[in-house]
């Protein structure tokens, strides 16, 4: 992006010029050789600066080197000055941005511009984004000065478009298949026979069976043609519901402890990556987030990019009436039969758990992942962590601790009720988090039951 500005006289030049001329004049008029000698260096500096007065407009381009980051990755905020004879010093300073580490740490760099050089001068500050989200790096102040600091070329603070930082998904694998795959193609074993890789049974040959399916050892032993029957491989739909109504805990980026929303976003990224690689379709709804439409379920590596970008745009709700209304409308979304709904929530908002119970009663497979940081789920929370829960904790620590204990009691009661209603709740633990509950869900899905549609 090119930047424009105009050359301006600096106070240093005004000082040298004004005092220099004044002192020399006083020396002449009042016959004071000391005034003449004191004014001479200032006047010489002013004359030198005026002789080297800039006559051209510098060409300066600014950009960030990477359009997209993952948590922990770095980009560079770079200003490139085309060769010019008028500029001798160049400086760049970035204003701080939350969740960003800079190199150099002062966020300022300076360079001496060689007027004879034919290569452009580059000022660069490395910016490492330590948390998912959209990072607006800067704004930046760029200043170029002419000889002896007499003229300054300084545009308005420069802002570049925000750099999206997509979450760095946690490690996640699931050895157990989703309970009820119902798509056309995929890698999940379905309950009905068909073309696939997993053995169902060896049965007598029927009309229509393919000859390459004939199992010759059994056929030779029994004297009757037998074929290998397999389960059909199908894909399934995974719906990720990320609860952004609350963000509990302190977020210190990818290198430090995470908040509940950090855990939810990174876990959602991990689950999405795993199932998309397995060929399933994954959709996303961020509950309570503003200006973030649902991402329709789809498959493929490009869809992962779409999901991560949506997760990067997640912002926590600010607890207004509008947020409550938005949540209620988001909870009315359509969920098709056979979908596995994974709800990532700190279970602070009762509406989300109630929604999980409602989905389960409709016959949808639901897994709830508890994203509340483990150290905050204890009743005797350390004093230094109270501020992570409430902004006014420092003023009323006793009351805050008591209120949080009451909230945890309510939370555990709501979670127990959800478990009784058939909604498994597991804390996020990376690989294998969902295996046990998926196995239970698969077993349950094969059993007859009554659902309300």
């Amino acid at each position, binding site marked *: 992006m090119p930047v424009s500005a105009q050359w301006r006289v600096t106070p240093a030049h005004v*000082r040298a010029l004004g005092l220099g001329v004044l002192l020399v004049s006083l020396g*002449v008029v009042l016959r004071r050789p000391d005034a003449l000698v004191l004014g001479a260096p200032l006047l010489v500096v002013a004359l030198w600066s005026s002789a080297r*007065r800039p006559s051209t407009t510098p060409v300066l381009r600014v950009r960030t080197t990477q359009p997209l980051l993952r948590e922990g990755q770095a980009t560079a905020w770079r200003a490139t000055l085309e060769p010019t004879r008028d500029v001798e010093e160049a400086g760049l300073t970035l204003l701080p941005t939350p969740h960003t580490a800079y190199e150099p740490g002062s966020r300022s760099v300076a360079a001496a511009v060689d007027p004879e050089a034919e290569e452009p001068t580059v000022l660069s500050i490395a910016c490492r984004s330590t948390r998912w989200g959209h990072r607006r790096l800067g704004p930046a102040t760029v200043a170029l000065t002419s000889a002896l600091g007499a003229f300054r070329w300084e545009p308005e603070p420069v802002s570049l478009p925000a750099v999206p930082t997509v979450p760095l998904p946690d490690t996640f694998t699931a050895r157990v298949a989703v309970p009820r795959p119902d798509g056309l193609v995929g890698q999940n074993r379905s309950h009905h026979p068909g073309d696939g890789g997993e053995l169902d049974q060896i049965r007598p040959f029927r009309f229509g069976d393919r000859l390459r399916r004939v199992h010759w050892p059994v056929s030779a032993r029994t004297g009757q043609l037998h074929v290998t029957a397999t389960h059909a491989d199908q894909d399934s739909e995974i719906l990720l519901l990320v609860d952004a109504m609350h963000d509990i805990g302190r977020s210190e980026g990818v290198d430090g402890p995470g908040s509940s929303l950090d855990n939810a976003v990174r876990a959602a990224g991990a689950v999405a990556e795993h199932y998309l690689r397995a060929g399933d379709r994954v959709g996303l709804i961020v509950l309570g987030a503003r200006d973030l439409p649902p991402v329709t379920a789809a498959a493929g590596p490009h869809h992962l990019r779409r999901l991560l970008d949506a997760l990067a745009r997640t912002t926590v709700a600010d607890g207004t009436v509008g947020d409550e209304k938005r949540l209620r409308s988001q909870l009315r979304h359509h969920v098709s039969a056979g979908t596995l709904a994974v709800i990532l929530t700190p279970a602070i908002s009762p509406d989300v758990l109630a929604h999980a119970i409602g989905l389960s009663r409709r016959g949808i497979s639901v897994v709830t992942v508890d994203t509340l940081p483990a150290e905050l789920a204890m009743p005797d929370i350390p004093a230094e962590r109270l501020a992570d829960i409430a902004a006014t904790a420092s003023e009323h620590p006793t009351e805050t601790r008591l209120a949080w204990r009451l909230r945890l009691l309510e939370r555990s009661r709501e979670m127990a009720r959800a478990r009784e209603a058939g909604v498994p709740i597991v804390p996020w633990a990376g690989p294998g988090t969902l295996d046990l509950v998926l196995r239970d869900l698969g077993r349950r899905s094969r059993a007859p039951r009554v659902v309300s549609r």
Partner: protein
Amino acid sequence: MTAPTASPRRPSPGPAGALGLSSSQAAVRSLLVVASLALVALTLVAAPHGLVVAAVVLVPLALWTAWRPESPWATALVAGLVLHWVATVPVPSSTGAWLRLLAAAWLLLVVHLSAALTASLPPSAPLPRATLRRWGRRGAVVAGVILPVWALALVAGEQGVGGEVGLTYAAIAAAAVLALAVHLLSRDDRG
């Protein structure tokens, strides 16, 4: 996504961390303070009746200017130092007094250049070595250029050259033309 995975260090407080200054910026600003204090001291030594009140005002002003060299207080400091000298030190009559005047002019140059340099670049950015070399070289050139002026004033003062009205008017006219020329050269490009 092809972003580099190089992870820069976390921000760490620099050598002049508490003030948010790089070490080179701190050094040049210290030079400004030292030169100001030296000039104040030189004035007090050279003046028959030193004006201590002026020194009391100029010392904190020098410290403030070192903290905010881009502010108008830098001009106030330079003007104050000059005024202090002109108001208290008589016209030099001995070689020692002339040498003190030359030293004062050089110190004034150091004060001005160090204020201009530190105001040109971000306070927390280290000053490039090439910049320091270039400014040092130019400062030395200016310091050398004023030597003939000083020598001329010294010779004229010691030989007691009598004044001549015509030459005085010519010098005033030359100073006015010089001021006008410098003003025209330094005009701001507005519009």
